């Protein structure tokens, strides 16, 4: 037994040091710095209690970013999950041109978000962009989709759905393949239609996959924001500013690390809730072993 302990220590040491050094310890440090002021030159950080958080509550830009991110999540998550399921059902039904379909759905997944941003930027460009050219065919006026605070959030949102759906499709595809064929035959004998079969058999059986995808979709709605850098830079009027982008700007353009830490704690809080939820609730439904 003792020999096992020593082996385990030696085997785990490098991985655990790096894991904790770049995840757990910085997470704790972030929480601590959120209660301190930003150090300036010779003036070291001093304890300010919850001042950073109170300041955030009065910061309109931060509140705006939170709202934007909520809308962003509330639309991209269900949209990409539903489209992913539809894609998987299409690909699973073995129709003509299957490999083209699968390629078309999945390709956005392998592209970098920056490249994706570039591609879509030209799509949305007023009058010359493809969307406006199609609108012109129907005599609709040119529209500055990314320049209008009312529509800009939807442009970055569409891009996220486009990028994510194909990725989530893969997981549904894997789940659909585990549904036993006899079930389908039995349902047919019982006279169940396709829709009934989908609702009563398929949907419950792929529930664990849906939950797994849901968790990933929530994480992506916080993390996957690279296209903002190319497409909108959070503008106009902060209308497409998302939380992580705002943290980046606060920390690395205004060097206000105290505020940035307090905002990071907000994200950490959401992710921790997710982790706890998965631990206590999901684990019972998703079988890992």
């Amino acid at each position, binding site marked *: 037994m003792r020999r096992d302990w020593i082996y385990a220590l030696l085997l*785990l040491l490098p991985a655990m040091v790096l894991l*904790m050094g770049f995840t757990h310890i910085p997470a704790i*440090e972030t929480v601590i710095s959120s209660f301190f002021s930003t150090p300036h030159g010779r003036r070291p950080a001093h304890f300010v209690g919850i001042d950073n958080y109170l300041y955030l509550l009065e910061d309109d830009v931060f509140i705006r970013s939170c709202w934007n991110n909520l809308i962003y999540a509330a639309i991209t998550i269900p949209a990409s999950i539903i489209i992913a399921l539809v894609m998987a059902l299409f690909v699973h039904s073995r129709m*003509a041109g299957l490999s083209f379909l699968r390629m078309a759905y999945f390709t956005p997944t*392998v592209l970098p*978000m920056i490249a994706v941003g570039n591609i*879509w930027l030209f799509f949305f460009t007023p009058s010359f962009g493809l969307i406006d050219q199609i609108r012109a065919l129907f005599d609709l006026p040119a529209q500055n989709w990314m320049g209008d605070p009312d529509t800009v959030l939807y442009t970055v949102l569409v891009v996220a759905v486009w990028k994510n759906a194909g990725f989530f499709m893969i997981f549904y595809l894997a789940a659909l393949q585990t549904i036993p064929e006899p079930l389908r035959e039995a349902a047919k004998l019982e006279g169940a239609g396709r829709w009934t079969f989908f609702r009563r058999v398929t949907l419950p059986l792929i529930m664990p996959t849906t939950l797994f995808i849901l968790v990933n979709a929530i994480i992506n709605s916080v*993390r996957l924001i690279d296209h903002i850098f*190319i497409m909108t830079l959070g503008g106009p009027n902060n209308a497409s500013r998302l939380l992580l982008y705002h943290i980046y700007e606060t920390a690395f353009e205004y060097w206000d690390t105290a505020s940035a830490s307090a905002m990071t704690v907000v994200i950490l809080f959401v992710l921790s809730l997710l*982790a706890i939820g998965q631990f206590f609730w999901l684990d019972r439904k998703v079988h890992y072993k």
Partner: protein
Amino acid sequence: MTAQDTSLAARLDRVLMTFGAWLLALLWILPLAYAVWTAFHPSAYETNFTLTAPLTLENFPKAWVQAPFARYFLNTMILVAMTLSAQLVLSTFAAYAFARLKFPGKTILFTLVLLQLMVTPDILLVKNYETMGTLGLVDSILAIGLPYFASGFCIFLLRQTFMTIPKELDDAARIEGEGLIGTLWRVYIPLAKPTYLAFGLVSVSAHWNDFLWPLIVTNSVETRPLTVGLSVFSMTESGVEWSVINAATLMTSGPLLVGFLLFQRQFVQSFMRAGIK
């Protein structure tokens, strides 16, 4: 309902579904097709879709000389290779300990590993940047990869795979006189090959595409990966033509895209395998 009715309904159903599937696929491929169109045509045809438009390759060399893409490619390849090798080695060791050894604190440590699936290093920008400052690594390729060397995801995947390997094989290797490294090399690693491949593809595409952390931690041509280089290139105000930007965009995603098209089946299967735990 007669048999003929059902077959007619079924056929109609089939046609509608195929139609829907193709419509969605065309919609999904449209942005990429548009990028390909502009990249392979002179800039005059950026928004003018005539089938007779002359094809050209000149946008690619134009983009290539306007920014140090060769260096960016090299940086990204170093980054991806370095990160993946470190991840595989460290995770193999850790996964073996979690799968086969008994030691105190195992559950807590494994929970910490799983936590990294949620709280990833790229959210902790400020502190990790400070750490790199302390280590004197700011603006180095090592700094881009280092936070990802220990991958919770890889440890988890390998542990799940190792647990399915019969303990008897392990014992047999030991009886033949293999040490720990030998057993890993002769028994565990060969049997877990599909998992290694799956994780490898996921990791390479993730780090090839990563942007925010490299943007923060690099600030010179010698260290910038392709994604950051591409963003610098396309954000310059000098009025670079669309067709050239799109050529650069395709170029930087090219190797992954070609790799994906060639190994489509393995790619999709790998992602699937990585998803089913």
